[in-house]
């Protein structure tokens, strides 16, 4: 089977949707020459009306996409860096997200926002290393963080086809993942449905995006110690697959979440809140996150120190296994 990289999978999904649906178009900065490779080859295939290079006017082009969506198109916006989503937070959370309800259902805003390279990219420092998926989940914008090439393909397809705004974060740490993939088997992955990436009996580890790799590595390591870890990838941050998670935890009765957002009121907080409300656990659950208020320092070792990593995860799993109620 051929190898498919995560980034190439996104590129392929975009190309397939552009080919399949006339109403889809892409816009963003440097999408014509495909500086990030997300749009590689697409300008030549689809031309300037379907692959639109924008000036540095994020607020206007985000609302422009909303307007185009109101007029029947399905825009896909590429944002070069995650903090650009801060710059257009009003345009997504207060405009695109709200049109359907505010108009009493007269319209829909099917825009997809893609950040290829979210989270830390070593050396990009404080203003380019954010991972703000929890913010979008909080305001109720559908939010997706794929962890594998096949999921990247399938979730981007579903995001584009969805009739609401959807933000897709493609973590920098995942872009290079390559899997053996049967191209014919690529298909849409529904939003809001998680996946058990690895079965296990002793503890459920919830992980998203590039952190699924860390969770799997931790599971491998712990398997050697006779500890059986189940890895659950919700794939969508919002809506969260609570039932899928509940089913896993019902078996393992222990829970750790690893989350590349800040601790306070992040995705990890939501998982633990659901656990507090709904799950019967044998030990208090734990979250492994960025620290509160984290600003990623430039020096690589400091940058790494602020990110949740495998060691923190191993410690948390051990803690939960030792923990008693």
């Amino acid at each position, binding site marked *: 089977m051929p190898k498919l990289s995560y980034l190439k999978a996104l590129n392929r999904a975009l190309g397939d949707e552009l080919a399949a649906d006339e109403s889809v178009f892409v816009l963003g900065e440097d999408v014509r020459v495909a500086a990030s490779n997300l749009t590689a080859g697409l300008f030549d295939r689809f031309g300037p009306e379907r692959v639109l290079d924008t000036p540095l006017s994020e607020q206007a082009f985000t609302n*422009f996409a909303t307007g185009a969506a109101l*007029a029947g198109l399905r825009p896909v916006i590429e944002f070069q860096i995650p903090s650009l989503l801060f710059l257009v937070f009003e345009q997504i959370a207060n405009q695109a997200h709200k049109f359907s309800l505010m*108009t009493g259902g007269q319209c829909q805003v099917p825009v997809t926002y893609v950040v290829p390279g979210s989270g830390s990219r070593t050396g990009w420092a404080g203003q380019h290393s954010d991972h703000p998926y929890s913010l979008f989940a909080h305001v109720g914008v559908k939010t997706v963080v794929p962890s594998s090439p096949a999921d990247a393909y399938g979730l981007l397809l579903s995001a584009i086809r969805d009739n609401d705004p959807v933000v897709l974060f493609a973590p920098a740490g995942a872009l290079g993942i390559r899997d053996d993939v049967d191209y014919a088997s690529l298909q849409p992955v529904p939003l809001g449905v998680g996946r058990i990436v690895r079965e296990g009996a002793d503890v459920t580890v919830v992980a998203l995006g590039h952190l699924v790799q860390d969770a799997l590595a931790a599971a491998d390591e712990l398997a050697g110690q006779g500890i059986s870890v189940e890895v659950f990838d919700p794939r969508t941050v919002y809506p969260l697959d609570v039932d899928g998670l509940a089913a896993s935890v019902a078996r393992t009765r222990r829970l750790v979440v690893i989350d590349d957002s800040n601790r306070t009121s992040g995705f990890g907080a939501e998982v633990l809140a659901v656990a507090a409300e709904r799950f019967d656990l044998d030990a208090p659950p734990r979250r492994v996150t960025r620290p509160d208020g984290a600003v990623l320092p430039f020096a690589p070792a400091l940058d790494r120190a602020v990110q949740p990593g495998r060691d923190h995860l191993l410690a948390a799993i051990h803690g939960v296994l030792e923990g008693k109620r």
Partner: protein
Amino acid sequence: MTAEHLYRTVRLIRRFEERAMDFVRSGEIVGGIHPYVGQEAIAAGVCAALRPDDVITSTHRGHGHVLAKGVDPARMLAELMGRENGLNRGRGGSMHAADFGLGILGANAIVGAAGSIATGAAWAYQRQGKDVVAVSFFGDGAMNEGMLLEAFNLAVLWRVPVVFVCENNGYATTMPVRSAVAGSITGRARAFGMPAFTVDGQDPEKVLAATTAAVSRARSGRGPTFLECTTYRFDAHHTFEHRARLNYRSTEELSTGRSRDPVEIQGERLAADVRAAVDAEIEALLDAAAGVALGGAHPDPAAALEFLYASPEVNR
């Protein structure tokens, strides 16, 4: 006929707003409104230049725009009262009135936000082969919002069939335009490479003429035009000002400002009997509208989140 049509529109808006303010006072309309009184000629003149399939975006001060674009006053009033038979089924209220069937892509409560939405919509219709023009209304205050200036740039670069209509009523809430806008409004627009004109916004016929030219330019693929319509807000920024008097406009200024009343300016162009007939007709229309609005059902609180998502994946 045009004269009568324009008069009918300005008069309809005026009386709609006056009645709406009564309903604010009586508590039937909750949250208040931003009255359009004094600025009616702009909505009337601009919308008279549009085809039914042309589209508009509106503002917090938007009742005039949507009425001029053809909205049923009963449904608009019902919306202000939060009824199920309102334009937005009571979900939007004064600042979000929308009627997609009439090309009204919604009023927007965020100053400066809608210019880029209108630009995107116009571009998208064009790409779909429709020769539709979009008009975006906004105030002088919006000229200081960067996101709107960004929209001007996109519209010119991509030759989008959009007309930007700036209603310069001299104030953003209490901030005088001269303290808020460095340079001039048309100069700022022109710097983006758009033709920009200042129009007497108290005279519906002048507004119509300027808009007709701008729309035909847009429709024939020559890109956006900017119209600064000078006007005066006769009443409060928002009805909350009726209770909390804010000190920013002198009595002299107010009386000068109110001296050029669009309803009078256009009314004087009609024969007295024609004018009286229109007036009577409008009162009857608004009486009926009030009846329909007041009779509308209140939406069911259990359906408070209906329409939140268009795709069904999200189960809460």
